[in-house]
């Protein structure tokens, strides 16, 4: 079933025409043998304790009901989200749990919980600063000097995105091969801070989350402005890894596992940003008419 991700990744990308499956990708782990006594016990997953998941509109927004109980956050606050689409996506997450609740797959719920509880007690300015900090160590600004093919690959794939961001925001972003990283002008940071200030705290939580996943603020901006799809952004973020995979082979239980997790997290964060900043766009449109 999951072998389709090999096909998925190759879809339309010119730089990934490696043979299907690496040297060990086709290995199956063989028949299951009962594990020995000192087996590491994976963290317990809670049993699915509800049958039906539904949505109700309350005062503060949309709420999730598990049977007749209201969903709460870890800090026991009522779980309310501002947009209907987000509520439906969260409800779908809860409804898709088979037998046990797998919290590590419920990225949208996690993001909503973080926004509601704000466990790190940060205000808007701190969130913006945390996000902009990723610009100083932006993945796509760090370049290698050898091997020649990887240098070329990084130039061909990353430069257009940097150029786009420079044009879109009217700023200067440079790349560097030094370990100290590129020097980002203070002006660039100012422009970005004032741009991010237009987002609400929910969207900012999402922006910081996505930047932390991709290790790149520029790619995050590409996702916010619909310049990149999630698949493209993840590919660009993992460019060197993809290059090494192409050279040395793909390992399903490490590379594909990380790829799918990164994609899921990035997609959740991106969707979260868009759904949480939507109300402002709608207002904007109404004003225009």
């Amino acid at each position, binding site marked *: 079933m999951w072998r389709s991700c090999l096909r998925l990744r190759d879809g339309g990308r010119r730089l990934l025409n490696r043979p299907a499956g690496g040297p060990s990708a086709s290995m199956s782990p063989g028949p299951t043998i009962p*594990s020995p006594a000192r087996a590491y016990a994976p963290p317990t997953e809670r049993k699915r304790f509800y049958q039906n998941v539904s949505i109700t509109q309350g005062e503060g927004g949309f709420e999730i009901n598990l049977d007749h109980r209201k969903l709460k956050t870890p800090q026991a606050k009522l779980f309310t989200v501002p947009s209907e689409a987000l509520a439906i996506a969260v409800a779908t997450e809860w409804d898709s749990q088979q037998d046990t609740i797998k919290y590590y797959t419920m990225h949208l719920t996690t993001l909503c919980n973080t926004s509601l509880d704000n466990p790190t007690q940060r205000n808007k300015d701190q969130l913006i600063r945390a996000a902009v900090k990723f610009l100083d160590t932006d993945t796509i600004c760090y370049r290698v000097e050898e091997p020649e093919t990887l240098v070329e690959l990084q130039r061909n794939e990353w430069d257009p995105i940097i150029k786009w961001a420079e044009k879109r925001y009217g700023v200067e972003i440079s790349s560097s091969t030094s370990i100290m990283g590129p020097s980002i002008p203070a002006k660039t940071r100012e422009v970005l801070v004032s741009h991010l200030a237009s987002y609400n705290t929910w969207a900012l939580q999402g922006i910081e989350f996505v930047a932390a996943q991709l290790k790149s603020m520029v790619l995050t901006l590409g996702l916010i402005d619909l310049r990149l799809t*999630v698949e493209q952004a993840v590919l660009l973020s993992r460019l060197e890894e993809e290059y090494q995979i192409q050279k040395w082979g793909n390992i399903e239980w490490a590379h594909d596992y990380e790829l799918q997790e990164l994609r899921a997290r990035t997609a959740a964060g991106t*969707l979260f940003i868009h759904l949480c900043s939507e109300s402002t766009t709608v207002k904007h449109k109404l004003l225009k008419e």
Partner: protein
Amino acid sequence: MAALGSPAHTFRGLLRELRYVSAATGRPYRDTAAYRYLVKAFRAHRVTSEKLCRAQHELHFQAATYLCLLRSIREHVALHQEFHGKGERSMEESAGLVGLKLPRQPGGKGWEP
């Protein structure tokens, strides 16, 4: 953005993922709130004037992002269950993962001539 493909393609992909999702409850996916919402949203933005074109594009982007989310989670869970969900592996299994086999003693384990 050409990378998104056609909206119909994204919509079909979403329906397929919803079918997987609803396998957890055993109820038909057409009864879910997600299905109703998606159908409504795709219908509302099917025909648009020039002015709303950006909205249609935005919706399609969100739909494609959601499709990517559902698909990646499904594949991630499958990989997790196959490789990470069962605790520690036996020696044979670990060797098998990297394409090796344990040596076989002709007279059984611990056999010495």
